[in-house]
């Protein structure tokens, strides 16, 4: 086994299994921070063992065994034998003979609901979920949430301490407690999918893993909570986005905007699944943010059959979305859709009414603005393009905008 091959294998199993292993390890001890550390140690151990001995038949089980050994060693060093130590020793004595089985119980969804518990600072719900279940580090999360990595990691540590000691129930909550936590869990799943999706069209394998994870979690949530229409809406939204993955870039990696994508490349099965979810959700008669966003994507998907985009329908959905929650994305989307129906001036006037501070660092705002100004042959288009280009994180998007700017 060559070292690069082994390293690739470790990277891939880490990407695939990180959240599952952390969730499983901490489900027994409630100690998320130690589970993360132990898994880190196990990965380091794999870096020297796998090139030497070959990749184990069941890499996940190997990592789990190694991580558990690290956990037990560590808690033996600590003088205090708390509940966690006792539990770990029970595990070591074979009451959880998981390493011999092929299936490691999946505790990720439960861990997500633990992270979203009302006893934990709501501000930290999503970052905590992104870190524990999806393995994002404090720097990546801090960037997304505009907080310094140091401050973010301090708050994450505090939340994990609370989970460890406070005795939060480790389960998907029952009816009454479900609703308030569901919101945070859906938000985190969508954030995970979104942060993966941005990079997923490119070659970033880490981002790809996040998007897969997001889709997977959305499916599990839908199985566990089938009666909540927003859960189906979320799955539909993610499925619609995922269906277009291979159409989002040309063969040579160029960015292709949604309205110009080759719809023959869209994944018909995924689109059909998304439509089924939206249809069932609609029967509940409780509209929400994810159902509306799913419906918007569904209108775009119609183009595969009709050859045209029903901008009027999209504008109506965006208006509903804005009424429900006037987030930057919804406001920008509405302006873009209204511009298609009523003309670029009207779209532009909607953009002008948005909060000047909020839009400062928001790339989609500047991209839409540039597009509308260019349609009107206005000279300020160049400035808007420049803002949009400067705010683009994706190289292909930057190239696309540079080309459009002319």
């Amino acid at each position: 086994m060559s070292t690069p091959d082994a390293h690739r294998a470790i990277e891939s199993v880490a990407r695939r299994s990180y959240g599952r292993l952390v969730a499983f390890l901490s489900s027994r001890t409630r100690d998320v921070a130690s589970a993360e550390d132990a898994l880190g140690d196990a990965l380091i151990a794999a870096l020297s063992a796998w090139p030497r001995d070959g990749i184990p038949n069941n890499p996940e089980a190997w990592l789990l065994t190694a991580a558990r050994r690290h956990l037990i060693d560590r808690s033996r060093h600590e003088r205090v034998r708390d509940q966690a130590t006792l539990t770990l020793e029970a595990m070591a004595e074979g009451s959880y003979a998981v390493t011999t089985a092929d299936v490691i119980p999946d505790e990720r969804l439960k861990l997500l609901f633990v992270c979203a518990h009302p006893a934990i600072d709501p501000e930290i719900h999503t970052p905590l979920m992104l870190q524990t279940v999806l393995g994002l580090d404090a720097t990546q999360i801090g960037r997304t949430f505009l907080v310094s990595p140091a401050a973010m990691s301090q708050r994450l540590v505090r939340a994990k301490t609370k989970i460890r000691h406070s005795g939060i129930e480790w389960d998907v909550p029952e009816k009454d407690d479900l609703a308030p936590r569901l919101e945070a869990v859906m938000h985190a799943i969508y954030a995970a999918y979104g942060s993966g999706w941005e990079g997923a069209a490119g070659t970033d394998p880490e981002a790809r893993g996040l998007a897969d994870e997001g889709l997977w979690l959305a499916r599990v949530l839908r199985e566990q909570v089938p009666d909540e229409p927003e859960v189906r809406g979320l799955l539909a939204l993610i499925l619609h986005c995922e269906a277009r993955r291979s159409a989002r870039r040309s063969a040579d990696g160029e960015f292709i905007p949604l309205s110009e994508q080759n719809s023959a490349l869209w994944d018909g099965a995924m689109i059909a699944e998304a439509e089924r979810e939206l249809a069932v959700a609609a029967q509940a008669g409780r509209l929400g943010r994810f159902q509306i966003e799913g419906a918007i994507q569904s209108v775009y998907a119609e183009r595969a059959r009709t050859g045209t985009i029903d901008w009027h329908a999209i504008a109506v959905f965006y208006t509903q979305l804005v009424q429900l929650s006037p987030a930057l994305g919804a406001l920008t989307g509405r302006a873009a859709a209204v511009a298609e129906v009523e003309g670029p001036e009207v779209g532009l006037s909607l953009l002008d009414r948005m909060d000047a501070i909020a839009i400062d660092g928001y790339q989609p705002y500047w991209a839409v603005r540039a597009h509308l100004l260019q349609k009107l042959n206005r000279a300020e288009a160049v400035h808007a393009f420049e803002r949009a280009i400067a705010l683009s994180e994706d190289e292909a998007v930057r190239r696309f905008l540079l080309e459009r700017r002319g």
Partner: protein
Amino acid sequence: MQYAFLIYETPEAFAHRTTGAGDAYIGAWRAYYQACVKAGIYVGGDPLHLPETGTTVRQTDGKRTVQDGPYANTKEQLAGFIIMELPSLDEALEWAGRCPATAAGAVEVRPLAPEAKERIVSEHPE
């Protein structure tokens, strides 16, 4: 697990302690206490005297200093504590929500730390 319910009350709630029999707030507390005992979760606890009766001791430069109070100028003051035996934080929060003090004041729920106590009481420290 054991949880401490730290009871915070407003001055108005404190005032109920000196009212006559038949006080509704005290009646609510009596019912709550009985419910806790009946559920088998009550471990112990007591009300505290008014915040003004508190005295704080510190060692400063090897000298004992004694201070009146403190009583923070907050609306709610620590008024008592109850130790409860409950399986999870979720159930603890449910029981805390039933406590009469939550109507006007607040209840802070904190898990006891038996492992910290173990270090103190163990006879053979390593």
